[in-house]
């Protein structure tokens, strides 16, 4: 089975985003980057499916040169090869631009199954997988918690809201967007890291005229709508004061 896993490189979770001077993007020059967490689960799922059914896992990403690092990490964790659609503008691109860039490089590969995370931690569009499927002309299902590959089809467990689930069967090829927590992530071994150095990263150029359908005109820190009583002082003082307030002011503990 030929499996593609689409990953995005995003600023690390503990990085505090600051707005740039023209207020249309963040100052990410000083950010450290990591693989988007739901995409890491998608990669893990792809590796497990390969172990079960054979075939190869090709990790794909669209973004600037720095994205090669995320692809290397995925190769170290066990992906067989990588495709990097390289373009600086894609760092700020919307889901349509990114999906189109990915689709252009992925079409020739004829993947049986395409996996990606359900959304990214940076722009959070939650649509790249679905857009990609439609551009590739194949079926999709989203927010997946279990993948069972059958002959010519895949039966998946979709997460619904409020603790509900549903099994859905769809024909291959298909795109699935993977929910965090579907599996337990593995870490790269030293052997994997060494092996990754010899694995291929195919560079691809995005199609000309790649355009986002939405544009950020202003980016800012949201205004607070609720008055929060911030309690300062040493940890001991703050803890004491909080307990007092919860007892006497909010009256929610005895």
């Amino acid at each position, binding site marked *: 089975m030929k499996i593609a896993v689409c990953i995005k490189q995003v*600023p690390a*979770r*503990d990085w505090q*985003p600051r707005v740039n001077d023209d207020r249309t993007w963040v100052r990410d020059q000083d950010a450290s980057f990591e693989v988007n967490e739901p995409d890491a689960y998608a990669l893990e799922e792809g590796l497990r499916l390969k172990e079960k059914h054979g075939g190869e896992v090709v990790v794909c990403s669209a973004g600037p040169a720095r994205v090669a690092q995320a692809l290397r990490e995925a190769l170290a964790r066990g992906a067989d090869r990588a495709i990097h659609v390289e373009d600086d503008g894609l760092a700020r691109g*919307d*889901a*349509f631009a990114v999906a189109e860039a990915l689709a252009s490089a992925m079409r020739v590969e004829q993947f049986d199954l395409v996996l990606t995370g359900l959304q990214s931690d*940076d*722009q*959070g*569009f*939650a*649509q790249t997988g*679905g*857009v990609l*499927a*439609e551009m590739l002309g194949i079926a999709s*299902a*989203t927010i997946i918690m279990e993948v069972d590959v059958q002959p010519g089809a895949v039966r998946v467990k979709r*997460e*619904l*809201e*409020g*603790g509900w*689930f*549903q*099994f*859905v*069967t*769809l*024909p291959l090829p298909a795109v699935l967007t993977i929910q*965090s*927590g579907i599996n337990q992530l593995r870490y790269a071994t030293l052997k994997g890291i060494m092996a990754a150095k010899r694995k291929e990263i195919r560079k691809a150029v995005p199609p000309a005229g790649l355009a986002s*359908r*939405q*544009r950020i*005109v*202003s*980016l*800012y*820190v*949201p205004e607070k709508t609720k*008055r*929060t*009583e*911030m*309690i300062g002082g040493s*940890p001991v003082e*703050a*803890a*004491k004061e*909080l*307990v*007092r*307030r*919860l*007892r006497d002011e*909010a009256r*929610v*503990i005895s």
Partner: protein
Amino acid sequence: MILVIAEQQGGTLNRTSLETIAAAQQTGSDVKVAVPGADVSAVAAALAAAQVAEVLSVQAAALDAYTLDGYVAALAEVVQRERPDHVFLSHTYRTRDFAPALAVRLGMALVTDCVATRWLDGQLIVVRAMFQGRLYADVTTSGPALVSFQIGAVRLDSLVNGSAPAPVRTVAVAIDAGSIRQKPEAPFREAKQAVDLTQAERIVAVGRGIKELDKIDMARQLAAVIGAELGASRPICDAGWLPMDRQVGSSGQTVAPKLYLALGISGAIQHLVGMKGARTIVAINKDSEAPIFEVADYGIVGDLFEIVPAMLKALQEA
């Protein structure tokens, strides 16, 4: 005209659709509501109470059980016929499933996770959350867009009802059931939940900031002392540190206790929608800019591994 796509399941309206109708009303445009399904006459009649120009019952036998392909086929036809300026939806899991493909089919932009809109020189500005809610972005699109609204972003009580019911029109759509690639089975719940957090008066919830499995004991102790249930954000349950039935948020339980004490929870929107109805919210987090402080009544910026033991001590002293 704004076309709102309402959501129903087995004849029961998803309440978030009413929030989205309210959002559409607030733009000042004419509003139409389309509700897809096999037989949606009762839901359409209920929707007609809202002050809208028209309610469309988008009916086809193939729309009985939700499928991505069925919904995209039906809604693409409706949008092409009605030609709205924009299409509004609730950012539910179902919308997240079908809206991307619908946007491609229609050649429209899809702006997700929106919290507000306004007009600027005749153009719709959509405000959406980014970077896990740490930043908001004002976004424009080059043409008509699908816009999905964050659950709870627009207050349900701001919905305006009409003085008389709006007209309901049945729109028959032709869907070839054989072209639907997804074969759905009946929705189900996992084995009965052991804990019902929705009934808890107090909840102590832990997030990534707890760092280690062993540290959860500290939170458990605090919960025991103040008579609270233990809850968690998604990553804690994903890691297997606490069972899934302890999870608060869009994929877990929605809670409204008297006290919600969030320890090391940054406050991703998926978590906030599950707990922002709590009466008193306390956040303890080392990151002063964590979005959890946006909804907190009391906040402490600091090291929870120092503050929680100090709280335990203070609680025992008095």
